[in-house]
């Protein structure tokens, strides 16, 4: 996974000034956030289901070795082939080997974050195999050669005009004057285009929302049905999944499905949930001849051994992105990783190492909304704090920020100095804001005051008031 997370501050500044992006982020709040609120209100059992979902994920991660071996055994018994891959390079090589053995020229893909993580498309292209994303959003960003900006709505940062431009540019051989102003027209064109790819593909690659240990089954959830055409029509189906995707049983999957779509898109359930077990069987009328599952580590066993192992419970619904004030202000690309938002700010440093990603755990106000809406109750603020501690220990952030914290710590350990410093600062600020009780600017804090006024303090410290007997 290539990483531009080190540019986070500059990216975030650019995103705040991007009016088109800001409009797109506004739509996200109206769509997913309001949708979730409505379906949750219709399900009194929602919180009990989240408790159970959290228990399922905790139990599975605590028994991960057992469930993965069980999954492998059942999937193999059903005729599937399971490949364990240590890192992205191994996974790419394995996928290429399967594609080449099948003489593949064209590969269709269902949406997969693991596919993004291991950058499989570039690799296949470099080996003369054409990969085609079939989720509409993924297809659009593939044409534009962009990273997804959201884990479940990859093209959410784009306007319909930008999509139309991309279609004009890439769908050659069509009338350039054709009307593409409306989303319906864009959708119809993509449908026609991708239908041909579905029918011609040699190999279909999908991700997995879950792997089910008791039956050796992989599960995908889509609204478009693209994942199903991807995995049903070609001769070979490859599932790419990271280790933590496993769950014990079909009933456990049902529980997780009850919280997944509600948390993600605000639907009661997605249009298509598909359970696949092995390749086509003798009398079946269709389906792939071969079924492969890539089990990818790529840092997961390190995470399992670390302080933030709980992040492995994440089911990638995107609720923490949708409800995060920071994500809502800057969108996904600013994070410089395929996993943005709160879950991404925990996962990216865990997968890629903290150096280079040390800005990400700082990109949170720790307001706690992510934990409030998480369907598996991940303690995201706690994990972000863990990473901040680690970053401080390893020297990041550096320079000025460290100096300020050191100064503050020096004073905080000397109450007389702290009170003295607080006293003069307050007196000065209160004098500045005497006119109407608000500060229009504070030297050194222009980044804050350029967009908002700061309420001026009343002039005396809490300690001073306490001593003078004002206690209410």
């Amino acid at each position, binding site marked *: 996974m290539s990483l531009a997370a080190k540019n986070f501050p500059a990216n975030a500044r650019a995103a705040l000034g991007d009016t088109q992006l800001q409009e*797109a982020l506004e739509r*996200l709040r109206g769509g997913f956030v309001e949708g979730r609120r409505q379906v949750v209100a219709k399900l*009194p*059992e929602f919180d*009990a*289901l989240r408790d*159970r979902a959290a*228990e399922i994920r905790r139990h599975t991660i*605590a*028994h*991960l070795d*057992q469930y*993965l071996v069980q999954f492998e055994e059942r999937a193999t018994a059903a005729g599937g082939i399971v490949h*364990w891959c*240590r890192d992205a390079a191994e996974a790419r090589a394995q996928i290429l080997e399967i594609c080449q053995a099948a003489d593949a020229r064209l590969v269709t893909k269902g949406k997969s974050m693991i596919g993004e993580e291991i950058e499989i498309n570039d690799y296949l292209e470099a080996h003369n195999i054409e990969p085609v994303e079939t989720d*509409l959003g993924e297809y*659009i960003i593939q044409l534009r050669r962009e990273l997804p900006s959201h884990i479940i*709505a*990859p*093209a*959410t940062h784009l*306007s*319909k005009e930008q999509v139309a431009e991309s279609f004009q540019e890439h769908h050659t051989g069509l009338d350039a004057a054709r009307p593409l102003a409306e*989303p319906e027209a*864009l*959708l119809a064109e*993509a*449908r026609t285009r*991708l*239908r041909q790819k579905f*029918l011609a593909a040699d190999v279909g690659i999908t991700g997995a929302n879950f792997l089910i240990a008791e039956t050796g089954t992989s599960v995908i959830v889509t*609204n*478009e*049905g*693209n994942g*199903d*055409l991807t995995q049903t029509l070609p001769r070979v189906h490859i599932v790419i999944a990271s280790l933590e995707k496993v769950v*014990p049983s079909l*009933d456990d999957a*049902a529980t997780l499905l*009850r919280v997944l779509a509600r948390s993600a898109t605000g639907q009661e*359930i*997605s*249009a*298509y*949930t*598909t*359970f*696949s*077990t092995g*390749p086509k*069987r003798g009398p*079946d*009328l*269709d*389906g792939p001849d071969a079924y492969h599952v890539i089990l990818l*580590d790529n840092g997961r*066993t390190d995470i*399992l051994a670390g302080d933030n*192992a709980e992040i492995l419970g994440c089911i990638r619904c995107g609720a923490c992105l949708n409800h995060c004030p920071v994500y809502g202000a800057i969108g996904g690309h600013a994070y410089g990783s395929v996993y943005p938002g709160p879950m991404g700010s925990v996962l990216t440093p865990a997968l890629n190492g903290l150096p280079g990603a040390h800005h990400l755990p700082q990109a949170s106000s720790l307001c706690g909304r992510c934990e409030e809406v998480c369907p598996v109750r991940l303690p995201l603020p706690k994990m972000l704090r863990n990473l901040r501690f680690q970053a401080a220990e390893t020297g990041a952030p550096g320079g000025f920020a460290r100096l300020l914290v050191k100064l503050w710590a020096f004073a905080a350990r000397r109450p007389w100095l702290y009170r003295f410093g607080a006293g003069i600062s307050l007196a000065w600020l209160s004098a500045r804001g005497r006119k109407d009780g608000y500060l229009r600017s504070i030297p050194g804090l222009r980044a804050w005051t350029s967009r908002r006024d700061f309420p001026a303090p009343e002039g005396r410290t809490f300690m001073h008031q306490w001593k003078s007997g004002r206690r209410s």
Partner: protein
Amino acid sequence: MSRDHILARMVAALDATGSSIAERQAGVAKRRGAPPTPIIPVRAPADKHGRADYFCARAGETSATTDRIAGFADLPGAIAAYLGKYDRGGAIKAQPRAAFTDLDWAPLRIAFGPADDTDGIGLVLADGAAAETGTLLMMSGAEAPTALNFLPETLIAVLPLARLAGDYEGAWSILRGAGGNEFPSRTVNWISGPSRSADIEQRVLMGVHGPRNLHIILVDGDGV
């Protein structure tokens, strides 16, 4: 070998949390022997017709349309009426099963077998359903090509009421008890409404890759 390498790292990480392999094996066996009772939303009424009404209401919210008939003999007429109402003409491609092949379809044009790209209208029999979200369950098999659920622009699904459960767990039980097919089949499709996408400006549009229209016909008598 990568498998052993990854498993060894996993075992080491889990051992470091204070659990042993033996304890983890016991933990898995214990949960399998006595799985937690599922938390099932209290939703659909228990009686057959109340449950069917609930199913239709939820399916309607997913933009599916529904109809109810008394028995399989009424199916060709109900389908002709549906296609006429929305002016959806053309031939039907149906699953090659006796429940369909035994019926008299004239004047409708119908063929039986796997799907191809030219099929405009698909006809399938649901193996189970869950009223809680208006969801159909379809197993793949010798009489049920999976692609038929996805390629046609209009999909008509027939659901015998005896196969309608209140919830997902109940629907799994119906599939397990269906006999004939090994469970789970290569593919089990849960279908809740037509194909949709909101990837362009969060506007929900139907029929992006799969069916644009999903019509579900509930059959009162079992008859299958």
